[in-house]
């Protein structure tokens, strides 16, 4: 079992969910975050005073998937989220040791 964390542009989330849906991934959790990376903020003015919006709104998605789904999930996300411009975001994969479905108490890869 692996955990995929992807930091994405808010506007592409719909496509990403559709894209994951097509390859059979149905369990997703989304978090509203603020991100900061190579994509630099922009200078704006408020009441004439300058300020930089350098924390941009991003969406983080978390997927717990089977080991065998990892590469297809990465492909699905990349396909839907890539614009080729700075700020597209990143995907990270980490190990997960166990999963439990609360409703049934079952464990292992079937909980996904």
């Amino acid at each position: 079992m692996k955990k995929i964390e992807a930091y994405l542009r808010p506007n592409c989330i719909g496509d990403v969910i559709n894209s994951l849906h097509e390859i059979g991934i149905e369990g997703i959790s989304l978090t509203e975050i603020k991100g900061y990376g190579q994509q630099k903020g922009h200078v704006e003015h408020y009441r004439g005073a300058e300020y930089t919006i350098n924390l941009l709104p991003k969406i983080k998605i978390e997927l717990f998937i089977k080991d065998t789904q990892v590469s297809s999930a990465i492909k699905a996300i990349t396909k839907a989220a890539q614009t080729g411009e700075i700020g597209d975001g990143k995907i990270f994969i980490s190990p997960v040791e166990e999963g439990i479905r609360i409703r049934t108490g079952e464990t292992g890869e079937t909980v996904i």
Partner: protein
Amino acid sequence: MSNYFNNRHIGSWLLISLILVLLITSTAFAANDPNGSATLKQDPNSAVNYIWVLICGAMVIFMMTGFAMVETGFTRARHANNTMMMNLMVWAVGGLAFYFIGFGLMFGGVGGMFGSLDKLLTIKMFGHSWGLLGAKGFGLGNSVYDVSIFLLFFFQVGFLDTALTIPSGAMAERIKFSTYLVYTFIAGAFIYPLFGNWVWGGGWLSQLGQIGLGQGFKDFAGSSAVHAVGGTMALASAIVLGPRIGKYIKGKPVAIPGHDLGMGVLGTMLLIFCWFGFNCGSTFAATDLRFTVVAVNTLLAGCVGGMAAMIYMCFSSGKPDTSMSCNGILAGLVAITAPCAYVPTWAAVLIGGIAGILVCYSVYFVENRLKIDDPVGAVSVHGVNGLWGTIALGLFADGTYGNVKGLFFGGGFGQLGAQLIGALTLIIVIFSLSYLLFKLLDRTIGMRVSAEEELTGLDVPVHGAVCYPEFSISSSLSITTNNTTIPNSITIEKSKN
């Protein structure tokens, strides 16, 4: 008298006279009453009449707050700063357009008590003379420095503001701010005053009684001149602009819930309050006690409109929809605005009830059949019901006021005919002019913001700050969309941020 006035110079003199006459329109010598003492002496009732109109006028201006709330509440958070600013600046720009140009065109043919507005461009037809446009009062110069005219201006500027702000609901979330201001100025200076003159400025529609059509075209407080004009311009603007990105997925409309429904409800309540100023103040005199009937009819039509829409929605989609209930109330108010002084209460109930149903059906029709994206229902609320109210007057006027009698009260088809001619004229003239204007703006300075700005939200690109910088906003379009609807159009745009 001097021999300088010989034939040789007559041409030059004529020219100079003409210029002088034009100048004189904005300078002294009319018998004005700038501090009102002469007016008061002539009519001691003017004190009570004037404060009545002034207070009602202030309430009409206050409506912008309600419109701002309804429009912003029923659209999305990422554009909220922009929607608010549109509703605020329409007041500033519209007010100035009216001051410099519009008021003169609209009312430059109406007499005040002193220092009258009396320049009306007319045309002769069917053996009668018909008013087309006023030509006095631009910039409220010295020749009209008179309390009665200032009062008229003040009361009317709020009506203008209302008409101009209506299309902002239909254009919300995608219109260029600068283009919006240009539209505001032109519509406030020329389009609104044109029809306004015909109805309220002594123009030809109000004169239809000359050829036997009832008492001429009647619109007590502006179902046509204000609301239907605004709604028709809204229609034209929404057509030219096209739907918001993500509104139609495979041709099916997607619900885009407003970001603060409570704000929309509060705005509706505020509008109810102001509407009593709008309609009752249109007696233009405290001594015309008919405003009591106006108030009750306004109240009833709003109540029934809201009830009807709410019940309709329960049947059509299962639940009492908040924003459509608000729309229903507003629709009832819009519809009763023209006939409010002329009809009995049961007719007000009927008119409001039909308005409440009409608005629901019209919202559905515009969205699903015409595929026009009108985010807050401006076309259906103000356009459709403005026309409905205009016509309803021709049906239900009971003859107890101003001798205006509708079809059902023995008035025959005269008054109804006048109303229909007015409604038709409005649709044709206002739609054509505004469609032309928007197309022109689209071709020249552009109507629509870039797809990127639209998707990110207009607030930062246009005004440099989001409306709610500290609140965590769900920035993804898709949070609440139709299943298949995760908007694919966006894929194509591949916009940044």
